[in-house]
């Protein structure tokens, strides 16, 4: 199929305003004739559901948690970017646009990113009006902090709980619409399929997680705001329930999946402590402002530390390798996420890692404490140090912290056009679920911005254009397409319950995660990816023969919930590998060992790979078709990133 990104004509800075003027509008009194389904209640979903209801549409909103307030967005710590230029430090919409395009290693669409930078300004106004308690200066005006990948201070924050406060703001707007009856909220409800009629998305099939009831919901448009797929790696910083099911089922119904191999590995997470580990905890990136990253110079010292015979403090200054400072003298410990992560892995691969597992590097605050005093460091990072201590039982004021990279965010996702519509008419994807504006690497504090931009300010406009051109007649859930989708969903559940094998869902998930991490994680090679692809196929085949799911469908069944999600991860995992194999270059979070410079840095290939890879599903176990959307850069010059 021809991919049409529907980027409006005209100069970059005018595209969005012009487009807003040109789109068709639904007459206010007609809006109540349209039903919109919003799956997800995170920043993207809650913002979209509330805004659409305010406009007058009838909205049904779904989440799998017990309350919309608990969506994974709640966990974001650091902050949200906006080109307000409140600090008068030279920020502008164009600068935010430029930083995001460059940070994404030139693999995002210019027009989308510029729009994101434009609406970022309104997001802050909106959140403040809702009562979001952002940090403030003594004079009462909003405070900002700086974040990686930018030379201006444009990040707004609410202590270390920015995501929580933004989500609670969106949740309050959503709650207000639930009260008015314009939104009907379905909690503990998981979407398991998209229903298309005459090629258009007309509804979804859901499972009630308490009763197991399979139900259909019909509407005029469906918005997927279901978050990212980082949990394909089993261990990640994502919430336990985060999954790809909604996006993946949509993919199987015709929505293209774009750039699945673009995943972000965050450098500062608490290392894995044992096999029991269920998830990884992020330590804010801000720690790299004062912490120095190092490992022992000699493998022997590293071995001694791993064996518990030596501690960090036994290693003399001249025996320490501050490898980021050594390799990147001008950026030092503040190199971007992908560079910092890759280097930590390299040190551990060389046998110089620390901690029991040898899979950790030190983040040392001793010099900062000497320089600024304990009080200052405590004031800056006290809560993070406490959190670290609670989890690891070690005191970071006395011993260097140990950190290791972990999967954090997925830039890939459902392909969408400028209107955020997928390749299935009437089916939209917002927030982390779409292939996003972040290209091959996301800058810190930009995901919250994108989720809220999509939900508050983009989809509510663009969806009107679609609905205005569509008759308001309703389809009912008696339509054969709904019955068919329900029957397929039930059949899949029955199949899982019947297998009664010997391995648990978690065992399969862990196995998949390990393969993905080892071969499709921080560094990838054609050979490794080919091996991994075969392994994933084998694990998937075994899953369908040997997984153990106990209990019945008609009850709250935590094993069945997980099994349905892992079944989809097992399919997605293969597509990620295929995408990584196809992309014969290194860019952002995608590092192919064959494509690096002599100094070991990522080597992009703009002549052959400046495109979005949008994969088209062809049926069970069949190879997917690659559709390419060329990326055209008219406003920025492509350069090789250098942080030396």
């Amino acid at each position, binding site marked *: 199929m021809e991919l049409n990104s529907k980027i409006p004509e005209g100069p970059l800075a005018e595209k969005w305003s012009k487009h807003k003027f040109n789109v068709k509008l639904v007459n206010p009194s007609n809006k109540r004739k349209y039903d919109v389904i919003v799956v997800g209640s995170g920043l993207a979903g809650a913002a979209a559901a*509330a*805004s659409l209801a*305010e406009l007058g549409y009838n909205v049904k909103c779904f989440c799998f*948690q*017990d*309350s*919309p307030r*608990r969506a*994974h967005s*709640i*966990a974001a710590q650091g902050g949200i970017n906006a080109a*307000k230029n409140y600090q008068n430090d030279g920020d502008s919409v164009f600068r935010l646009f430029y930083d995001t395009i460059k940070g994404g290693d030139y693999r995002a669409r210019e027009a989308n990113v510029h729009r994101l930078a434009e609406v970022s300004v*309104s997001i802050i*106004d*909106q959140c*403040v*009006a*809702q*009562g979001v*308690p*952002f*940090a*403030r*200066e*003594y004079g*009462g*005006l*909003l405070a900002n902090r700086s974040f990686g990948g930018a030379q201006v201070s444009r990040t707004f924050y*609410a202590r270390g*709980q920015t995501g*929580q*406060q933004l989500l609670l703001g969106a949740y*309050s*707007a959503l*709650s*207000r619409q*639930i*009260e008015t009856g314009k939104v009907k*909220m379905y*909690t503990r409800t998981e979407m398991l399929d998209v229903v298309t009629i005459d090629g258009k998305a007309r509804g979804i099939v859901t499972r009630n997680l308490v009763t197991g009831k399979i139900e259909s919901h019909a509407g005029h448009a469906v918005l997927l705001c279901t978050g990212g797929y980082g949990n394909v790696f089993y261990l990640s910083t994502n*919430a*336990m*329930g985060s999954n790809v099911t909604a996006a993946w089922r949509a993919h199987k119904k015709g929505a293209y999946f774009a750039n699945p191999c673009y995943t972000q590995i965050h450098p500062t997470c608490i290392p894995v*402590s044992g096999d*029991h580990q*269920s998830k990884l*905890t992020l330590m804010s990136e801000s720690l790299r402002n004062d912490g120095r990253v190092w490992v022992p110079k000699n493998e022997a010292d590293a071995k001694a530390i791993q064996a518990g015979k030596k501690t960090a403090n036994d290693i003399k200054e001249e025996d320490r390798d501050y490898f980021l400072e050594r390799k990147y003298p001008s950026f030092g410990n503040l190199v971007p996420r992908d560079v910092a992560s890759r280097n930590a892995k390299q040190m551990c691969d060389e046998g110089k890692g620390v901690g029991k597992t040898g899979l950790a590097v030190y983040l040392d605050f001793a010099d900062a404490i000497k320089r600024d005093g304990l009080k200052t460091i405590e004031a800056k990072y006290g809560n993070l140090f406490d959190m670290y201590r609670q*989890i*690891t*039982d070690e005191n970071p004021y006395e011993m260097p912290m140990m950190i290791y990279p972990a999967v954090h965010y997925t830039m890939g996702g459902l392909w969408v056009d400028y209107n955020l519509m997928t390749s299935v008419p009437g089916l939209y994807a917002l927030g982390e679920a779409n292939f996003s504006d972040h290209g091959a690497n996301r800058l810190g504090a930009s995901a919250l911005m994108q989720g809220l931009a999509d939900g*508050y300010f983009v989809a509510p406009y663009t969806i009107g254009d679609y609905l205005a051109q569509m008759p308001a007649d309703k389809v009912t859930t008696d339509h054969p397409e709904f019955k068919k989708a329900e029957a397929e969903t039930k059949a899949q559940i029955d199949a899982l319950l019947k297998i009664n094998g*010997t391995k*648990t869902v*978690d065992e399969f998930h862990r196995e998949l995660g390990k393969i993905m991490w080892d071969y499709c994680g921080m560094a990838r090679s054609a050979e490794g990816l080919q091996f991994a692809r075969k392994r994933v196929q084998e694990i998937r085949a075994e899953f369908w023969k040997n997984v*153990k799911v*106990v209990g019945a469908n008609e*009850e*709250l069944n*935590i*094993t069945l919930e997980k099994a349905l999600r892992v079944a989809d991860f097992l399919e997605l995992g293969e597509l990620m590998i295929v995408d990584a194999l196809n992309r014969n270059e290194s860019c952002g979070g995608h590092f192919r060992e064959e494509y690096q410079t002599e100094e070991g840095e990522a080597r992009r290939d703009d002549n052959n790979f400046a495109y979005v890879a949008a994969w088209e599903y062809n049926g069970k176990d069949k190879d997917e078709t690659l559709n390419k959307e060329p990326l055209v850069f008219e406003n920025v010059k492509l350069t090789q990133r250098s942080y030396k």
Partner: protein
Amino acid sequence: MKLTLKIWRQKNANDKGKMVEYKLNHVSEDMSFLEMLDVLNEELLHKGEEPVAFDHDCREGICGMCSLYINGHPHGPLQTTTCQLHMRSFKDGETIYIEPWRAKAFPVVRDLVVDRGAFDRIIQAGGYVSVNTGVTVDANEIPIPREVADLAMDAAQCIGCGACVASCKNASAMLFVSAKVSQLALLPQGKAERKKRVEKMVAQMDSEGFGSCTNTGACEAECPKGISLTNIARMNREYFVAKLTSNNL
């Protein structure tokens, strides 16, 4: 470590439920409490038994999804969420009692999972500023003194977990409700609706079957986010002023 677990098992809302004993022999001190339950569940699955259902999601102490009444304390012995509690807080050989939140307004769904929908309905009754998307002024046109913003943020940190209700002998939801009322009453954006808000939220709280507050302070002591009792005092003031001067909704 070796542990004996006594866990509340209840098939569904209509089942009577009972405590069931389990033994776990290989628990590491570095595990979180929920990872310890993961280990138990894997063992149960291998035996073909149904795992213990419990709520959780972020496992970072922020989503408010995890619960559990552990040895007589909501979220266990420390002032954190259950997901942030580690096994080093327990002794080898210890017997640990694990129950769901107990409150009329939080009916048990299954095992350790309860229905906290009442909290959502209280927020829906008025826990917001009525502002439509896009109809706002520039953010810096509403300066807010830092001390006020800090107080509002202190209150806004509530994660809606329900430990305050579980800790209270009357199963009162005052701490939770007062946190939201305080946050919005403190901020200029929330002032226009403050009277209506507190009246409607309190009315909803009462209709959900939460008990009344007798100021024992158990909620504050158990709240994992340190939400302070002063919020309850502030809400009481808000409520009396509203009742005295509004149209008594």
